[in-house]
């Protein structure tokens, strides 16, 4: 068994696709129209056959209170691995991305938390080489 797809709820799929591709740097993988929404996924260019991230419409009434509560407490809903958190923080901040937590050394890794502008917080992590 392997993880093929995971999802984040997004307020607006078009805006989410722009943020996840143009800003973060993922690539669109599937975009299948389904009535007013789409089955919309992105993948990392570093692993195009790797797990897909589904940008799922946030219309269900349970989604907003759930996400608002996590957002208020600064809790990220997804985590992406990067080579260098400080470099990503600089690159993304220059594009106007807001971080709720700047790069922080947590011993085994460096982490930071950003606002994806679609209603979620995302943690970036660069694990340190063992030893």
């Amino acid at each position: 068994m392997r993880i093929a797809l995971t999802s984040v709820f997004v307020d607006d799929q078009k805006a989410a696709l722009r943020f996840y591709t143009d800003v973060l740097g993922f690539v669109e993988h599937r975009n299948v129209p389904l009535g007013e929404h789409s089955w919309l996924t992105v993948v990392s260019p570093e692993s195009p056959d790797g797990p897909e991230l589904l940008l799922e419409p946030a219309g269900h009434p349970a989604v907003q209170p759930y996400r608002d509560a996590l957002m208020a407490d600064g809790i990220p809903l997804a985590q992406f691995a990067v080579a260098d958190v400080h470099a990503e923080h600089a690159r993304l901040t220059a594009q106007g991305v807001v971080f709720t937590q700047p790069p922080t050394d947590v011993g085994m890794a460096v982490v930071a938390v950003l606002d994806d502008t679609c209603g979620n917080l995302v943690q970036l992590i660069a694990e340190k080489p063992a030893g």
Partner: protein
Amino acid sequence: MVDVFRALDDETRRLILDELSVRDGRTLFEICTLLLARHGRTLTRQAISQHLEVLQSAGLVRAERRGRAKHHYFDTAPLAQITARWPTTERTDP
């Protein structure tokens, strides 16, 4: 209202204030991360949230929404009660 002295009578709460004095305006998630990473404290988020409530009730921490996230700020004003009650003096060597 929790008294300042009671709010300070706990090492976890003192560590939270230490971290806020290094950099103010942290989220609950960030405070949890720091307590674990820098101080080896494996408390639940709920427990840390309750510690923050005690600090807020004593007026030592203010929570403000910035965008959709809630950030916590250290307010040192209530600490003046301590020096007002027991003024500190410079110790001069004999």
